[in-house]
């Protein structure tokens, strides 16, 4: 593998981490959705490049699934959900943006230290992909933890799943059936969550998950 190929893979995976940080930084729902679409687009490019480097044609299908479902269909559907719920106002962050950013940098550093330590035998491309994929997953979890709005938690979950796809493509010899079933299970999870959003709204007149905490008697 030439160093230019590695550099381009590094560029694309690095941009995916950067897109995760942009999602962490956004405090408006529509902007968050647009960045999520960008995130999925970068993922599709990255998977496509892996397909070219590894000479694995089935990865092109994974890239296509990422592009069509995650970069187009899910953001458009979420746009419509937000419009129907009538919540295009600001997201309330639980802690400030500065602290969230610092926590995110800490998570990225942690995942790099962990992944580079535990995979000394694997080849460079897979190690680098695994390190970045773990940081995208952790950043997705961080987005879910720091947001109160149920829709942005869904977006965090979807970006987490993008990280899983990146990890799966980095490992050579992942069967196509597994990837397609993962993609469809995420789609089904998305539909279920979408229905739940409307149920939550009907019950509590809001998609702020603090209402759920209050209902269970956890806070105040």
């Amino acid at each position: 593998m030439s160093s230019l190929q590695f550099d381009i893979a590094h560029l694309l995976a690095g941009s995916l981490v950067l897109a995760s940080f942009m999602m962490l930084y956004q405090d408006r729902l529509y902007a968050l959705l647009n960045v999520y679409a960008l995130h999925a687009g970068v993922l599709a490019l990255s998977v496509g490049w892996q397909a070219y480097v590894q000479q694995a044609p089935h990865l092109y299908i994974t890239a296509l699934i990422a592009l069509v479902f995650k970069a187009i269909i899910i953001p458009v559907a979420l746009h419509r959900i937000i419009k129907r719920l009538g919540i295009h106002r600001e997201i309330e962050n639980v802690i400030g943006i500065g602290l969230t950013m610092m926590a995110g940098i800490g998570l990225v550093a942690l995942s790099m230290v962990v992944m580079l330590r535990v995979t000394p035998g694997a080849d460079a491309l897979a190690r680098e992909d695994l390190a970045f994929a773990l940081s995208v997953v952790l950043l997705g979890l961080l987005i879910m933890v720091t947001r109160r709005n149920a829709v942005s938690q869904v977006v965090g979950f979807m970006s987490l799943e993008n990280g899983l796809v990146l990890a799966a493509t980095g490992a050579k010899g992942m069967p196509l059936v597994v990837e397609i079933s993962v993609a469809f299970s995420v789609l089904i999870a998305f539909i279920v969550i979408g229905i739940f959003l409307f149920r939550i709204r009907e019950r509590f007149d809001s998609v702020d998950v603090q209402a759920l905490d209050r209902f269970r008697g956890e806070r105040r």
Partner: protein
Amino acid sequence: MNELRDILSQGAQMSLVLGLAPLLTGFVRKVKARLLRRRGPPLLQPYRDLIRLMRKDVVLADNASWLFRVIPYLIFAGTWVAASLVPTFGNGLLFSWTADLIAITALLGSARFFQALAGMDVGTAFGGIGSSREVMIASLAEPAMLITAFSVAMIAGSTQLPTVAEFMGSDAVGLRVSLGMAFVALTIVALAENARIPIDNPATHLELTMVHEAMVLEYSGRHLALIDLSSQLKLLLYVSLIACVFLPWGTATADASVAWLALGALVYLGKLTVLGFLLAVFETAIAKMRVFRIPEFLGAALMLALLATLLRFVSGSL
């Protein structure tokens, strides 16, 4: 012979930055005015302002201490030395073997420290506001600057600017995502350090928003001229720094002939024009931020710089 040549080259670059700094400021002002469909002041207006201020008497407040009178010279000296460390048209800099990118940050930091002291010296309310805001901005911009310097140094293997510029101009760089992030981070830091528009407006004296102008409100005459000249030098320094690290093409090497040096000077002027024009367009297109949003903006620079370092760490350790 080589010694003499180095001294000449260093001297030429030092006088060049001093001579060009007001012109760059005038150029940015002119382009901004033209973009707003005004005619704007002539290009040479900053020189005339400096000469006018030099001729005027200095008016000092009754309770101004000796520090207040010394500080303009300290700021000017620190900024000029820092500017002389950045390669402009040629890489042969005599001083660059004694000081590097970190020293430049330190020199600019001490200049800013003295400026904040001067703002508080007389004891007026505006000076205090300006100093406290300046220090708040600096406390976020300086770490971002240092970490950007580290990530550039990790890629180029050196913090000496001529070495960095030579490495960036060669093929050994490859395609580096860290460099793109470092570029954006350095641009944000440059905007903050030079009091440009999203952070501070260099052309206003509005009490609620000014930062840099509030600190220098008590200065007059030749003191004010020196402070103005050093802020113009600082703008030129940052533009040259960005040009030398991220657009290193066309810079003359240390042992180049006179013709190559002349070509390098022409290319350098071209880079200044392009970057100055981009700065003016950016400033016209964007609105000034509230003071409380500045930490988020600068936090993004810090985050980008840290991320650039981390990404470089991964690709470097594989």
